[in-house]
């Protein structure tokens, strides 16, 4: 009698306390779903929702369903900190994916490092995955272009291409087009500032001179003044670096000022959202931008290993959410799929998942590019993730 009671209690105990352990693989997901960076967080969140369904519909990983716990960091660092702590403490997640912006990701880094949990950021800055002293060494270096980091933060990875990669792609294009003098116009918020820094750093390497350097605020409604100055400068091309509505306004102003055909507008990879072309109306015609392949999946060479991945993601996403696919959602896709692969291989082992990412993600086709993670590169790809595209009749075409 007594024994059966003990057995019963043990069973109850197991069900209550152990079951969450095997009931699902828990993945924490932090994104700027609301607030000033919500256009990043929105597609990321959608992608996470969609992937959870996909994976669980295919009876999960090793027969175990996954659970993606989604938290909103609202574009605020303090919220990102709390969200991360909640995920780690209360939800006991194996991995934290996020957040959408560099600032939030930077605030999350120390937490994940302290509890030794893998974090995969969807933001771009190299400083997220590179230790502070390494960043300092690279910045102090006298070489005219960006030093390559020699070490990376042990627990931190990111799936978005570094800004430097997009800058390099643009400058390579400029070189090919014999453009030697460019004007830059950037937003004075995280993305734009980082872009501006890389644009200035890398210009000498490609023999390019920056003849005008203009700024605007993230909530500005008109950039005519800045573009007027650029129009009067000897620039052969203008490079805009921003995300969200401001890049559309820049495009409209550029078009209205009659700069099309005279000073071509090159947008950052942040322009990678079809709705930007629609919002700009006809103004976006002729805009050139480095883009990840997911945006024009149909046009990608079928021999490219990315092709099946991006075709599936793009069609499914657009079908499900009735909105155009963006590269940002793609970052979420890559992060989750990498974790899913790692879980398949090693199971619920935090260190194992980390090691898998660092050593086994080789020639791994994602939406952003073909990833090759290594102990000295926690981003996994560079300028090769991009192609230069041009807006022609409202569609992306390979830039000639």
């Amino acid at each position, binding site marked *: 009698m007594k024994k059966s009671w003990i057995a019963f209690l043990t069973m109850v105990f197991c069900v209550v306390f152990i079951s969450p352990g095997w009931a699902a693989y828990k993945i924490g997901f932090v994104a700027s779903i609301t607030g*000033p960076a919500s256009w990043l967080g929105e597609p990321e969140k959608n992608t996470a929702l969609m992937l959870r369904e996909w994976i669980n519909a295919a009876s999960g990983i090793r027969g175990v369903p996954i659970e993606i716990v989604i938290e909103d960091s609202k574009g605020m660092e303090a919220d990102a900190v709390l969200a991360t702590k909640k995920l780690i403490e209360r939800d006991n997640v194996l991995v934290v994916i996020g957040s959408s912006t560099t600032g939030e990701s930077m605030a999350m880094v120390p937490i994940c490092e302290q509890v030794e949990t893998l974090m995969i950021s969807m933001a771009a800055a190299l400083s997220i995955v590179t230790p502070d002293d390494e960043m300092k060494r690279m910045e102090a270096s006298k070489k005219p272009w960006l030093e390559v980091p020699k070490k990376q933060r042990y627990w931190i990875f990111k799936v978005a291409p570094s800004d430097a990669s997009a800058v390099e792609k643009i400058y390579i294009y400029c070189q090919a087009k014999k453009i030697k003098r460019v004007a830059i116009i950037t937003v004075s918020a995280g993305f734009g500032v980082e872009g501006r820094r890389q644009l200035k750093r890398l210009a000498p390497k490609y023999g390019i001179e920056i003849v005008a350097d203009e700024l605007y605020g993230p909530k500005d*409604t008109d950039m005519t003044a800045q573009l007027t100055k650029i129009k009067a400068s000897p620039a052969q091309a203008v490079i805009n670096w921003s995300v969200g509505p401001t890049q559309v306004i820049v495009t*409209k102003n550029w078009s209205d000022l009659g700069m099309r055909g005279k000073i071509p507008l090159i947008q950052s990879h942040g322009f990678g959202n079809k709705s930007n072309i629609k919002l700009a109306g006809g103004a976006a015609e002729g805009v050139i931008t480095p883009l990840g392949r997911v945006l024009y999946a149909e046009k990608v060479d079928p021999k490219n290993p990315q092709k099946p991945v991006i075709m599936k993601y793009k069609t499914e996403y657009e079908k499900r959410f009735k909105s155009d696919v963006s590269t940002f959602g793609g970052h979420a896709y890559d992060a989750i799929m990498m974790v899913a692969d790692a879980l398949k291989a090693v199971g619920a082992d935090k260190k194992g998942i980390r090691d898998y990412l660092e050593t086994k993600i080789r020639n791994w086709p994602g939406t952003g590019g073909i990833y090759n993670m290594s102990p000295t590169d926690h981003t996994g790809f560079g300028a090769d993730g991009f192609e230069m595209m041009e807006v022609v009749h409202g569609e992306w075409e390979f830039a000639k």
Partner: protein
Amino acid sequence: MSLFSEILQFVFTGLTIGSIYSMVGLGFNIIYNATTIINLAQGEFVMFGGLIMVFLTVVLKFPLFVGFPLTVIVVMAIGAVFERFAIHPLRNASLLTLIIVTIAASILFRGIAMFIWGKDPYSLPPFTPGSPVMIGGAVIMLQTFWVLGTTLAIVVLTTLFFGKTIVGKAMSACSFNPMAASLMGIHVRKMILISFALSAGLGAVAGIVITPMSLMDYDRGPMLAVKGFCAAVLGGLGVGYGVVLGGFIVGLLESLTAGLIHSGFKDAVALVILLFILCFKPSGIFGSEEVSKIKKF
């Protein structure tokens, strides 16, 4: 491009931005004149104006001349409902509480807008299609004329309303001494309601005319409110023409600083000048010391 045409371009840009600040500022002013409340949800009226216009003309395909007034009426109704359900029940609370209520309302409005329209920005086609005009080497978009013209019309209409009509005069009486005003037979409650509806309508007009130029999304309101507020205070709250000029001054300062000095400092320069002016003329450039003393806040 000569320096002259460059400066001309900056001036036009400044005037366009300034028009919006003026209209937002006027919205502040109308409510302030009737209640001494600063309605920090003013920017959300602009946002609603833009987004409802998009809904009516782009989604429902209403023609411009139907969509425009309809949008204004809808937003005026929002303003009236806001006054009735949030401001009126608190008429005995402190002014600060009322101002915080407007902040809470602005958060709520943003929530509603996000619920309805999502987070994506929306655009409108320009009212008159066509390529920009060149004036003295400066490029002026056709929509700019719409913005400037609308502002001008609004300024004329509000001046007439407050200077010539009984309702308008009665409204300004309310803030100086609501008690006396009600003894004079002015229906204070109605005046406050009208002031909220009017300023909501003004916000809506601003939202409608700028959306073709600078898009509109649910989160646009707070920044516009802050700029409009600065403009209003710079010009002198309580003085209609002062507020309008304040808007243009802030707009011009911003675009000239961006163009001629450094675009990174454009917000700061406008503010430093604002602080400087407030130090020497605490009631704003065109404000009257006497009036600001009488007001309880």
